[in-house]
Structure formats: C-alpha cells, structure tokens
C-alpha cells in the first residue's frame, strides 16, 4: 500500500521561495569594511547633524568592546564584520516622488504584491467597503525609496516618513526618543545597528489621534554582501492609536547575509501601538546553504499610564532568527502582548520569544507563542517575565505550544520567570504535539492532499495568533506557511 505517512520521505525537502529574485539596478555600494571612517561616510552621505554622528561613533566604540551573545541555541560560522558592506543604495539622488523611482525597483515591489501606488491593493486583498487602505514605506537595501499616503496622513497630523527624513524634518522628536527604549549599548547587534544604521521608518501619532489607516514598511535586501541595518521609531502620543505592519524579503543567495535591525516603540498615557511583522527573509536552501541572519532588537516602552503595546509576529524566513520583541511596562495599568508564530523547516534555526518587564502597578502581559518545526530545523521559545518590586498586583499569562512535523526536528521552550512580589500572578501553559497521522488521514480521506492538509492543520494551530493580524497580513501569513511547509511531508 502506498505509504502516505509523515515520516516516510523526510529527505525530499524542497521549497519555493517566490521572493528570491534579484533586481538588476545600479547601486552605490560602500566597499566592505567597518571603521570610524565608514561611519563618517554614512553620516555624511545622509547629511546628518553632528549630534547624530557623535551618537553613532559612541555606539561604535561600545560595540568594539562587546561580544556576540552566546546564550542562544543557534550555531553558525563566525561572521567577519570586515567582510560586509554597510551601505548600498540605488544610484542617483533620492527620487522626489514615486514617479521618479527606477522602474526596475517599482517592478520589484509589484512582483512582491506591495502597492506603491495609492490605488493598489496590498497582497492583492480587496478590503471591505469603508475600510481605509494601507500606507507603505518601501526600504530598498539601505534607503527608503518612497512613502505613500503621506499627505492624507499629514492632514491628521500623523508623521510617517523615512528615518533619514525624520532626522532632518523632526530633529527634536528623533533626538528625544532615539535610543530611549533600546540604548545604543544594549547588546552587540543593537550597538552595531546604532553605529551604522541606514534607513527605516519613523512614525509619530499626535495626542488623541487614531491613525486613520494602517502603516507598513517593506524591507527588501537586494545587493550582495551587504548588511541591512534599519531603524524604526514609533511614538504614540497621549491617547493615540496606530497599527503598524512590517514585511521583509530578500533574493536567494548562497552567502549568508546579516540583518540587524532595531525597532523602538514609545507609548505615552492611554496610547496604543499594535506592531505586526510577517518575516519572510530568504531561509537558505534545503541543505542549509545561504539565508539571512536575522538578529533583531525590538522593544516597546509603555511609558504612559494605561498604555498598551502589542507585538504580533509571523516568522517563516531567515536561516537564523534571534529576536525577542519585548515590552517594558512602566506606566501603571499598562498592557503588553506578544503573539508569535515561528515556523522552521529544513535547516532553519529560530531562537525567539519575548521579555515582559513589569515595573508599574497593576500591569498585565500576555504571551502566546506557537512554534512549528519541520525538516531538520530547530525552534526555541525563550521568554522572560519579570515582576519588579514596584509592580503591585501585576499579572502575566503565557502559553507556549510547539508542533512537530516529522522526526528530525527539535523544539525547546525556556520560560524564565523572575517574580519579586508575592502578589504577582504568573500563569504558564505549555504543550508539544505532533501533526498526527490520524489528522492527516482524516484530511486525505476527505480529499485534501498531504501538503494542503499539513498547512491546514498548522494554520489551525496558529489561529489564535493570526486572529491578531490585520486582514491582509493574515491572508499572507496563511499563504506563507503553506509555501514554507512545502516538502515537509512525503
């Protein structure tokens, strides 16, 4: 009888990475290497004020003294930081408007389904009538090539632009908040980013404003041997609300490429920030060759009372993911949330999770993590919940579920809890399950074939997290899971 079991053909792993093409565009690429000269060059290229150059140099000097973190459950050959180029931008001046952008680049975003014209649809998904579109900032290698809906957002006082522009146009906001949540010497990769960061997005939502549309940034690595070091800063002033989405892709290349981003979120009194990521960097091939090293520091600060920050991530790409979107719950009654789906296949490694630091009174955090491992991959949840002495009557709920597909993958859960108060309530639930042969047989018996069936079962497993995503991203995330699981079942 033909054997349709999951374990039957674990070696026929194959995956199609649709975003893996290269755009043929002339770029100015800084030769590989990193020293103070490099930083001077980047800062000058971006015409930055002196304070920012000094800030970068200070970060660089810290970085020189630091070591790469060793505690994560990931293995890779040492990175030669002198072998990476720290700046790559399409040749020529920054386009004045999207009409001036190189058609090759526009074509790239078109292929990826990202609308750079305001009438287009994100991911081809029709929005229900009355729902506003999504504004996009498109970052190509080291620079932002354009931001849509800027004018209509400006009418509400919302600032949405590239980080480089913000440095010039809103220097007081940038200077006030840059490094406030993730200090420049926070960790090895954050320090590196602080020294050489290129571009990224800047968002400011003024007091009492509910951002009228979803904002999004699409990061695209195109050039070879370059690292991407973007920096995002989002500030929600008192009573403001914003939902922000982030997507990322890169060509298929045999070499590993480094992506070391920093994201800082600031929520003042009664403000709310929802930050969603669909991470689909190139994961490497079936043998584990190539792929992005995704070493990212993301942190939000609930500075204000009753403020709320929620991270939702769907991580399907990258050869290695090292990422712990965190929330510092400083304001009384503030709320932090982390919803995560991390899928690894073939030789991918993910060490991801979150850190919830409860400082204010009556603060609450929720962590829902869904890890899915297939192929020979390794998937780690690492979380820390800390209840500080001042965090009176605070609570956390953590749920970590792992799903294994096949026999050769691994899943681990490391939930750390540091509660320095008796009245802290910290609840933890964990489960590990396998896509069962019985579930698979049920699907097949009803006419749904192996891969579709696994994708459906996995999607069901992730439902609690997908529910948190804006519509387009939920659709995209479900599709991505399906593609990423290709070849995981015989």
């Amino acid at each position, binding site marked *: *009888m033909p054997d*349709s079991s999951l374990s039957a053909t674990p070696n026929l792993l194959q995956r199609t990475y649709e975003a893996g093409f290269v755009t043929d565009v002339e770029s100015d690429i800084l030769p590989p290497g990193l020293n103070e000269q490099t930083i001077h060059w980047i800062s000058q290229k971006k015409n930055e004020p002196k304070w920012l150059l000094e800030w970068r140099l200070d970060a660089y000097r810290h970085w020189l003294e630091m070591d790469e973190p060793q505690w994560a459950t990931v293995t890779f050959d040492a990175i030669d930081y002198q072998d990476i180029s720290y700046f790559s931008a399409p040749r020529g001046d920054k386009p004045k408007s999207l009409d001036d952008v190189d058609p090759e680049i526009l074509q790239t975003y078109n292929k990826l389904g990202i609308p750079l014209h305001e009438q287009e649809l994100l991911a081809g998904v029709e929005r229900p009538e009355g729902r506003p579109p999504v504004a996009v900032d498109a970052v190509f290698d080291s620079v932002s090539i354009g931001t849509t809906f800027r004018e209509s957002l400006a009418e509400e006082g919302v600032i949405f632009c590239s980080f480089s522009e913000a440095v010039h146009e809103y220097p007081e906001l940038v200077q006030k908040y840059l490094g406030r949540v993730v200090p420049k010497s926070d960790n090895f990769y954050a320090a590196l980013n602080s020294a050489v960061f290129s571009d990224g997005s800047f968002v400011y939502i003024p007091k009492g404003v509910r951002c009228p549309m979803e904002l999004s940034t699409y990061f695209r690595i195109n050039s070879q041997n370059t690292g991407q070091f973007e920096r995002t800063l989002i500030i929600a002033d008192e009573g403001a609300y914003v939902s922000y989405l982030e997507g990322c892709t890169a060509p298929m290349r045999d070499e590993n490429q480094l992506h070391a981003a920093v994201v800082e979120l600031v929520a003042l009194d009664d403000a709310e920030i929802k930050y969603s990521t669909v991470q689909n960097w190139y994961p490497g091939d079936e043998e584990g060759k190539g792929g992005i090293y995704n070493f990212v520091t993301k942190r939000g600060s609930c500075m204000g009372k009753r403020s709320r920050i929620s991270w939702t991530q769907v991580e399907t790409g990258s050869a290695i993911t090292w990422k712990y979107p965190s929330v510092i719950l400083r304001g009384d009654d503030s709320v932090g949330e982390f919803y995560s789906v991390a899928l690894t296949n073939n030789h991918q490694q993910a060490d991801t999770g979150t850190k919830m630091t409860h400082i204010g009174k009556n603060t609450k955090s929720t962590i829902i993590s869904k890890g899915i491992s297939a192929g020979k991959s390794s998937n780690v949840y690492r979380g820390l919940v800390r209840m500080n002495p001042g965090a009176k009557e605070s609570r956390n709920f953590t749920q970590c579920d792992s799903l294994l597909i096949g026999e050769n993958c691994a899943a681990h859960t490391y939930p750390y809890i540091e509660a320095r108060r008796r009245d802290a309530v910290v609840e933890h639930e964990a489960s590990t399950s396998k896509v069962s042969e019985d579930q698979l*047989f*049920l699907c097949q018996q*009803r*006419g*749904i074939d192996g891969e579709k069936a696994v994708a459906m*079962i996995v999607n069901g*497993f992730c439902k609690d997290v997908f529910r948190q995503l804006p519509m387009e991203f939920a659709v995209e995330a479900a599709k991505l899971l399906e593609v990423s699981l290709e070849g995981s079942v015989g």
Partner: protein
Amino acid sequence: MTFLRIKDLVVKVEGRPVLNGLNLEVGRGEVHAIMGPNGAGKSTLANIIGGKPGYETVTGSVSLNGVELLDLSPVERAYKGVFLGFQYPIEIPGVSNMEFLHAAVNSLRKEAGQDEISTIDFMKKVRSVANGLQLGSEFLKRGVNEGFSGGEKKRNEIVQMLMLEPKLAVLDETDSGLDVDALRVVAEGVNQFRSEERAIVLITHYKRLLEYVQPDYVHVITDGVIVRSGDDTLATEIEERGFNWLAEA
C-alpha cells in the same frame, strides 16, 4: 453489477492476522449492513477500504468499479468517491468545519475537472445540510469536532458525507452513542444519501439503525471472515441470540 468487490482479503496488524480471507460484493444502489462481535475486524475492513496507513495487506484485492483501490493513496481513493465515516472521529483544533468542508469540496471538484463552488452556493448547502443533522450554524464555525460531544461528532460525519457526495460510503458505527432522536436524524441523512448510483456499507451493533435504514443484505463477521449473510431478519436473530450460535453452526 458489482461495484465494490473485496476478494480473499488477508490483513495483518502488528504482525497479527485480523482479516483472514474476507470476501464481499456490493452493487450500486445497495445497502449492506455488517455486524460482528468486538474485535472481529469490522473497523479494520473499513480502514483498509479507506487506505489508512499501518496495516499490512498480505493478499487479496479491494476494487471499486474495477479499479484496484489497494494501489491508490487515501486521497486518490477519496477522488474515486470513497468515504469513510469514522468510529472515533478526531479533532482538528483551529480548523473550522466550514473551511475544512470548503477545502474538501473544492479539492474533489477540482479533481473532477469542475469549477470551484461559489461561496454563496457552498454556504447555502452547508447550512441546510448541517441544519438537517440538527447542528446549528455555530457548529460550522467551530474547529473540526473540537469540543463536540460524542453524538455531535457522529452527526458531523454525516454532514461531511452529504457535502462530499461520495459514491461509496462506509459508515463505521455512526449509530453508536446516539440518543433516540439523533439516531433518527442520522438515519434520515443516510436515507437521503441512498440512491441508485451509490453503495453504502453500514457497520453497526444494533438492529435499531436497520429499522430506519432498510438494508438489502446483512453480513456477520467473526474472526476476520464473513460467516453468514442474509437479509434483515439476520439482524433480528443476532439481536436475540448473540453471535455464538453462528460459530457453533
């Protein structure tokens, strides 16, 4: 004309023989009931027809309309119109009944070279089918069998059968664990499904189902072979006398 033909079927589970040269022929338009003591091999037979992994077929053949099923994967058998109603339906958490059925219906239609069913037609049909089995719309939004009671799970099997419109339905104790009203509802579902084009194999322990769904034949399996075949009076005899007299005969 014979539609389902099972010939000299010998099957082992974990190295132990469970079916020992079983023969059965079912024609289109017929309803066959299969009875037999616990452990006789009834579910094994159903699972072999559906293609469930984990069984060793030593010899024999299972063909549908002249096509050897044993050479086909489970999904290919589904494409050929085989449906298996499970004795113990399992859950798929987070996958709603609606999306599950929608995917299954479209997958079968695609295989048959038909267009996808329109969302409106699908919704209409699935609501009316579920209503017929006395499962309200809220059941369609819940995960497949997720948190369903035993009886609800069994009714859900019939919903799936009526949605997928197979040619051969093998229902493994769909009547077990149903209350009197649910039994009637399930029987109505089966009768509605019954047609000249279709064949039905009902595995059951109770005559009661057969009072609602009149079988053309009743077979008794013990120790992996059919030991007696007859009409529905055989079911009455078994209800009164048990199985032992068959072995003695």
